[in-house]
Structures are given as structure tokens and as C-alpha cells.
């Protein structure tokens, strides 16, 4: 079809184009709350999203999950969100330093690290020391990802611990075959039995994963407990964001996080 040789009356294509351009304007009349949350919060925040929509008719909660480093840098580059929940203080701090937040960050949950192993255990991993056995295929989150930072910190703490060599972390990291962009990708690689072991959060092993995965606990002194802060985002909808954060911090919200395996924000005496 050539323009100009025939009647250039707006045809059906033009109408479709106009409709496509105007559609977002029409949809905006309904309120949308956008929540950027760390990948490890997926199931818990899906629940929060549904609860929030029930309590606030006319509001749609859009949940965006990724590695915390992705969420923070996306906000920095102008992505729109109302609430930010990260898996460590570092990236929340990063967001605060760049004036991306509209209020204080509150820690709402904590999480333990565990070693995940395929149920078939192709790498014969029975204890933490086995992670250092040459030839093992280990997958971790990248060093920039909160889970990746915590994992490396844990391995460092195991250096020279009773029954562990002084260079334990270096021996283990020599087995690293991939650095994943978020902690869920680590679990996926282990679930697919491509990796012999990975390090993830205790909460990442959901009900469906339990049949496919075995867990190896990391004892307390060597387990850097992950902290999850939440904050309203600058330029976002303040009232809705505050209401959502209120839900997460409420007794009901805390109970829900507990059923998902998260630890409460402050260690109970």
C-alpha cells in the first residue's frame, strides 16, 4: 500500500492506532499502586497485594519483583513506583542517598540463609564442608545482589571455624559456575538440577520446591541474617504507599510473613 496514490482517509489502522495511544489515559482513572519488591518477597507480597486490593476497592496493586540492585537502579533511572522493599540495607541506603525515598525506611522482616541442594543430590553434598570439594557446581547470586552479598559474607565467616579451613570461602568460590541476577534464579538452577548446590533464603524454598530440594542449615554465628526494609518512594502516591506499608507492619501482616518463614524484624528476647 502506498500513501497518496489512494484516498488517505483515516482507515481502520489509524483508528486502532489512536485507540492504542489513548488507552493508557482511559485506564489511569483507576488507581494503581506500584510496589517494587525484592525477588525473595514474591509470595508474601503477592498475598499483601491481594489483601490490599480487598481492603481498598478500586485500587490495583502492581507488584514488580527483581534483585534489589535492579529495583534501586531502575528507580534511579526514573522508573515509577510507590513503595520499595529491598532485601538488604545497602540498596535502601543507596536509594535514600539519591533522594529516591519519600520517608523513612522501616525494617519489616528478616530472613535466614540456607544451602539448597537438589533432592537427587548429584554433588553428594552432606555437610557445609562439601561445598569446597573441587568440581562441585555451585551457583550463587551475584555479589551486587543482597543474597549474593550475604552468601559471600557467610562463607567468609566460616573461614577457620571449627572443622573448616582458613581459606574456606576461596575454595568454595572456586566452584562457582554462575552468578545469578536474583536469588530466585539460584533456586531455579538448583531445582533444575543443573547446579549441585546454591545459597538462598530459607523462605525461597516454597511448598512446591520441598519435593525437589534438600536444605542444609547454616549455623547462627555464620548466618548473616538478611534484613528487609520498606519505604515510600519519592514522587509516588503517599497515602496509598503509607497504607500498604501499614499493612505490612500490622499484626496481620507480620503473621503472614511468619507463615511464609520470615523472621520478625527485631530478635525477640
Amino acid at each position, binding site marked *: 500500500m502506498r500513501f497518496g496514490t489512494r*484516498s488517505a482517509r483515516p482507515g481502520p489502522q489509524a483508528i486502532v492506532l489512536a485507540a492504542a495511544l489513548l488507552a493508557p489515559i482511559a485506564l489511569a482513572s483507576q488507581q494503581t499502586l506500584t510496589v517494587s519488591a525484592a525477588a525473595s518477597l514474591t509470595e508474601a507480597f503477592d498475598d499483601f497485594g491481594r489483601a490490599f486490593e480487598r481492603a481498598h476497592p478500586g485500587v490495583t496493586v502492581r507488584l514488580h519483583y527483581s534483585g534489589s540492585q535492579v529495583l534501586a*537502579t531502575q528507580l534511579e533511572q526514573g522508573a515509577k513506583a510507590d513503595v520499595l522493599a529491598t532485601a538488604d540495607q545497602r540498596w535502601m541506603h543507596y536509594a535514600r542517598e539519591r533522594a529516591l525515598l519519600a520517608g523513612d525506611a522501616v525494617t519489616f522482616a528478616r530472613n535466614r540463609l540456607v544451602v539448597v541442594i537438589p533432592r537427587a543430590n548429584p554433588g553428594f553434598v552432606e555437610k557445609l564442608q562439601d561445598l569446597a570439594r573441587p568440581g562441585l557446581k555451585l551457583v550463587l547470586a551475584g555479589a*551486587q545482589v543482597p543474597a549474593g552479598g550475604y552468601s559471600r559474607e557467610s562463607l567468609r565467616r566460616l573461614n577457620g571455624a571449627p572443622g573448616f579451613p582458613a581459606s574456606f570461602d576461596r575454595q568454595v568460590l572456586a566452584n562457582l559456575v554462575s*552468578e545469578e541476577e536474583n536469588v530466585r534464579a539460584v533456586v531455579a538452577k538448583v531445582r*533444575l538440577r543443573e547446579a549441585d548446590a546454591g545459597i538462598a533464603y530459607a523462605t525461597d524454598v516454597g511448598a512446591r520446591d520441598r519435593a525437589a530440594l534438600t536444605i542444609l542449615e547454616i549455623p547462627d554465628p555464620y548466618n548473616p541474617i538478611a534484613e528487609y526494609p520498606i519505604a515510600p518512594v519519592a514522587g509516588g502516591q503517599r497515602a496509598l504507599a503509607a497504607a500498604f506499608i501499614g499493612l505490612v507492619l500490622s499484626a496481620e501482616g507480620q503473621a503472614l510473613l511468619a507463615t511464609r518463614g520470615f523472621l520478625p524484624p527485631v530478635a525477640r528476647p
Partner: protein
Amino acid sequence: MIAVPQARWSEPLGQALMLALAALVAALVALPVVALVLRVPPGALLAQLGTQGVQEALWLSLTTSVAAALVSLVIGLPMAHLLATRSFPGKRVLEILMDLPMVIPPTVAGFALLMAFGRAGLLGGSLTAFGISLPFTTAGVVLAQVFMAVPFFVGAARAGLSAVDPRYLDAAATLRAGEMHTFWRVRLPLALPSLVAGLAMAWARALGEFGATITFAGNLAGVTRTVPLDVYLLLHEDLEAAATLSLLLIVMAAVLLAAMRQAGLGLFAPPRAPRFAPPRAG
């Protein structure tokens, strides 16, 4: 039959709309490139090229993409020849199959590759028995790139091979040349420009491959972290470095496209007019 314009008043409107939309699409493609150039500090390209991580990624990208292009050539050429010269039952299905990697999301491709060639995949057991393990290896990167790139070569090569003037083939046949002989001595040389164009496109596609690589081969410096993966990683560490490396990839792609244009090998260049009309029956 040519339709007579009925509403002449709409002619300028149509012209204006055409130009406006053309300007829009030009801006859509140009703006991100310009923005990237503005983001790169002067002199940063050379400084970046000096860092070890970038050199590793660049070397890995170059070797794997060249390997992927060559593998695509070797395994794609026979398929292109079959599709160009023969008709057989199931050809339609085969054609769709060969186009499939061009349109499926690369992450899906990577996942499917895991399902097939992963340790727990369909062929995983057999591969392991031979001591072959593809995920998390450089060979896995090449496999992912071949999967994504081979359709570009097959498509271009097939088009070139089937566009060879039948008179040359008839001439070869009258000289009792067999199919293979005709292929090597007549069809292949005449279709060479298309083969080169297909090879270049396959190489470019392999060089830019990201989704299938990160899903199937993983992400580890020096082993599987190609330049696109490095860019993705740098996005969360060092935006200037990410922009610099992105610009490098764009420049490489632009140079490739310019060189192909110069050589008359546009990717979607309109078919050149035949030098003489093909003989018509009747």
C-alpha cells in the same frame, strides 16, 4: 486497475501523517543511541577497554560469536540448500521450525535448551555419559548463540540459493553435472553475496545474544559472561562503564550494517531486478 482518488483534501493530510510517523520512528530509534553517546564520558571507551573484566568479556564475545557463526554456516548451508531446491512432505513444518528461534523470546529459548541439553534434560544423561556438560560452559554459550543465530543464516542463504537463475542450472545439467557438483560450482558462487550477508547477520545476532545465554549458560566472568551480560551486570555497578560498553556494541553493529550496505548486501534490501527475464511457459 488504479483506484481514483476520491477525497483530494485528504492528500496533504496523508502526506503529513506519513512524514510525522516516519519522523517518530526515526526518533524512537535514534534517541536512545544519542542518549547513550551523551552518557559516555570522552575517552572512556579506551579506558574501559583497558580493564580486565571488559577485555575478558570482549574476547569471550568475539570468540564465541565467530564460532557460532561458523557452526551456523556448516550446519545451516545443507538445510538452506534443501529448502531452496527441493519440495518434500513436511517442508512447511521444517520452514516454521527453522524460523522459530527468530521469534521466540530468548529466555524461553534458553529454558528450552536447558530442558534438552541440561544435565537433567532430555539428552543430559547421554551427554554426561560422554563426559560432556554444556550448561555453565563456554560451549554452552556457543550452543545458545547458534540456536538463536542459525535461522538468520539459513533464511538468507536459502533466499540466495533459490534466486540463482535457472538458466545457469540448466546449462550445468546439459553438461551432466550432478547436484553436488552444480551446487559447489554454480549455485554456491552465484549465491555467495547472500551467504556472506547471512553469515554476517548470524554473527551479529550471536554477538548480541543475551537471554538464551544467561538462562542456559549462566553468568561467570571469563567463562560465560559475554559483553551483553557484562553490560547488564554493570547497569547495577557502574553506569558509565555500562554505557561505554553498550556504545561499543552499537558501533560494531552499525559498522557491520554499513559494510554490508556498501557491499550491496542489505539485510532486507529489495531484490535486484533480474538481469534478464526468466523464460515463461506458453
